């Protein structure tokens, strides 16, 4: 996987000296090595994708390049000259511009003011607004934008703002452009606008770093890709010589082996929920889904592929643009989580700290929260009943705690996750959505939660479980839906459900994937 020939793959026509060369970059944080001897070479006129799962070190590498972090070892050469920027402002000045996923421009300023902040055209010691607007108009026309630079930035869409941010970075820096997930909040048309801008800049000879989770986009726009895993470079590849499958394999670092799935298709139970064309523009393309009683649908896909979005749409946490839901054959409306709870839905969100637990409330109160909400606050659940429910779940889920009265934030991650699960189980849902139920918890709790999913399924509950752990999905799913670039690309059933097939479907290898 780390063969030397591939490591030094260079794009065709890159005989000249590289624009930027980083060698032996290391960065240590207390207790962890975030970057370990990382090398990256960028040529003029190259779009270089930087890939890796979350925590692989992409952001850290970018921050070391832009001076936001101080690297602990290594050399960065820009056009052959060693540089050590100590701030993003300094790296901008040297020639390295960065554009982030969140548009980092000021909403209260005009387009022109944003473009020229800090380097406004002056006349007689004062900022010349007229020249600033005129120059901004000319610059933005180059980027294919016909906007009024005197208008507030917020008048324009995120895509336009993104292009303005790129224009600012390029005009200020002009050598290396780092795009950190620039397409994450854009829809398809907007991505194309962005790509046309990137192609122009490539032709102008900039070295462009493109960070994204969308593999299709990587292959569409990039020349080379460097894949990071656990803070190390696992390979640099010329993209026209490899398949998406190869890249995914590099990213996940997984030995792909066929493991036969031994579960029978779980579509035997009666139909519970039918979803037709549910979607939201710019978030998730319309999808359809039929869920039977006693079925566990696994939701696979890379980060940002739309897993969480699908969970939130189903639960009404994010209102959908269109589509219908039918439960037990009758059409229902789920416009918000309250509706969802009333129809017997439950959702354990991905980020339990910010979306799930109420940290300072007791474990007991956290467990009965959803049940109480469902009953209505005017009809309090009797104290004795509350204790009974809480104790029941603490026992059955084996939640380890000192007392029911302790604030839930003091519990360990796995126990918090179980308490959160208890909260929703207490409402006896018909349909339980779990978003990354095993993220960030220890191995023991991991196995228990997987066992619990099995038990719930056997009792006739229907579940939708989003996870990035392939083996885990294989273990409990009766069907697996694969998402990529915010749309459903495959559905695997029965014996098709293997980690290998899931990875292939994620990477869209037509030879073996989409079944």
């Amino acid at each position: 996987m780390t063969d030397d020939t591939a490591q030094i793959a260079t794009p065709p026509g890159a005989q000249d000296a590289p624009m930027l060369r980083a060698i032996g970059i290391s960065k240590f944080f207390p207790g962890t090595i975030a970057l370990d001897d990382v090398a990256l070479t960028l040529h003029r006129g190259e779009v270089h994708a930087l890939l890796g799962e979350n925590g692989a070190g992409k952001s850290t590498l970018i921050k070391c390049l832009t001076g936001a972090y101080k690297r602990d070892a290594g050399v960065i050469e820009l056009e052959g000259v060693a540089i050590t920027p100590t701030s993003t402002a300094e790296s901008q000045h040297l020639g390295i511009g960065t554009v982030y996923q969140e548009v980092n421009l000021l909403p209260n300023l005009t387009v022109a003011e944003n473009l020229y902040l800090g380097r406004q055209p002056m006349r007689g010691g004062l900022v010349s607004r007229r020249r600033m607007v005129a120059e901004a108009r000319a610059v933005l026309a180059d980027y294919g934008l016909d906007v009024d630079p005197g208008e507030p930035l917020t008048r324009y869409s995120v895509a336009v703002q993104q292009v303005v941010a790129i224009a600012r970075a390029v005009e200020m820096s002009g050598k290396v452009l780092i795009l950190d997930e620039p397409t994450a909040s854009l829809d398809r048309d907007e991505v194309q606008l962005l790509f046309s801008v990137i192609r122009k800049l490539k032709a102008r000879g900039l070295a462009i770093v493109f960070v994204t989770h969308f593999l299709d986009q990587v292959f569409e726009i990039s020349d080379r890709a460097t894949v990071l895993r656990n803070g190390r470079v696992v390979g640099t590849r010329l993209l026209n010589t490899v398949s998406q499958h190869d890249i995914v394999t590099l990213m996940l670092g997984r030995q792909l082996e066929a493991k036969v799935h031994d579960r029978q298709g779980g579509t035997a139970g009666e139909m519970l929920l039918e979803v037709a064309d549910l979607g939201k523009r710019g978030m998730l393309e319309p999808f359809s889904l039929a869920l039977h009683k006693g079925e566990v649908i696994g939701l696979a896909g890379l980060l940002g592929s739309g897993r969480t979005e699908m969970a939130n749409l189903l639960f009404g946490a994010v209102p959908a643009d269109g589509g219908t839901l039918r439960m037990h054959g009758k059409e229902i409306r789920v416009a918000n989580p309250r509706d969802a709870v009333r129809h017997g839905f439950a959702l354990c969100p991905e980020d339990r700290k910010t979306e799930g637990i109420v940290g300072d409330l007791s474990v007991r109160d956290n467990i009965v929260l959803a049940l109480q909400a469902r009953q209505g606050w005017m009809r309090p659940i009797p104290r004795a009943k509350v204790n009974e429910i809480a104790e029941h779940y603490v026992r059955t889920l084996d939640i380890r705690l000192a007392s029911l009265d302790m604030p839930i934030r003091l519990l360990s991650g796995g126990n918090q996750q179980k308490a959160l699960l208890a909260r929703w189980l207490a409402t006896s849902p018909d349909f339980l959505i779990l978003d990354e139920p095993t993220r960030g918890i220890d191995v023991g709790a991991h196995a228990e939660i997987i066992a619990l999913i099995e038990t719930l399924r056997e009792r006739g509950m229907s579940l939708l479980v989003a996870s990035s752990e392939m083996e885990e999905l294989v273990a409990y799913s009766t069907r697996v839906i694969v998402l990529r670039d915010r749309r459903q690309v495959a559905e695997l059933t029965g014996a098709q459900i293997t980690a290998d097939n899931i990875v292939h479907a994620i990477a869209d290898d037509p030879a073996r994937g989409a079944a």
Partner: protein
Amino acid sequence: MIRSTHLPLIVTLVTFVLAFALCGSQYPSILSTRVVANLLTDNAFLGIVAVGMTFVILSGGIDLSVGSVIAFTGVLLAVILRDTSMHPLTAFALALVITTAFGAAMGATIHYLEMPPFIVTLAGMFLARGAAYVLSTDSVPIDHAFYDTLQGIYWKAAGGGRFRLIGGLMVVTFIVGAVVAHRTRFGQNVYALGGGAQTAKLMGVPLAQTTIGIYAISGGLAGLAGIVFSLYTSAGYSLATVGVELDAIAAVVIGGTLLSGGYGFVAGTFFGILIMGLIQTYIVFDGTLSSWWTKIVIGMLLFAFILLQKGLTWATTVRKRRATGSAALS
């Protein structure tokens, strides 16, 4: 071209013109150069300090110390002129240096210790007021020939209005303030800071320099307002100008500047000052109303402007959402 960001400024301007016309229709003598001249003279110190406050609020901060700084400057000048033979101009320069340094120190505290401006300037308010008390607890009269000369400078307009030096100083301060805010890089950095400090930092705005500069300007202008106030009252008194910081904040907000920072105009504050002065003048003309009605009307105006700003913010977010939702690129 009229843009939506100019709307609060336009509303302030229209409010002022309407209010002035309304007062004029009831008491025609309000429409005289005499009243206008007095409006400028009586509000000179408030106007000057409100220019500094505009910068502070534009950057998303607040400066509660200015009222105390005005009183401190007044007492300092009075004591110096009473006890030493220093020339008033030297004393003025000394006062400006002290107050500017005081403001800069507060700005440095806010930036480097990452403290909320509210708390830092609240401490500054107590410090300056306390320092004024230490200098003198009594009202110290200023009796100096140079003061008489300065107070005697005026331009007599047709209709008998006397435009005095301090009113002119306020107008000049507003003009310089507007140029600095809108036509210099520092001014643009102030707006950037108000739009979002984190983003401004990523865009390369020098945060420390800007924050310290903003509070230094506010402190320095409070010192200048203190000089003007001592010329206005010919005395220095440690109990004077209590609560003036709040009047200044009110003038800035009525002038259309968003209290959360980032949006507003120095010129708006000028009309905010004039509106507040006009209310006071009206009450004097009426003669039967308690002067506390000033506070009630200012309170209502403030409330109206806050509602207006909320409405505008809401309107922009709705439009923004619509813009984001549509794929069409303009």
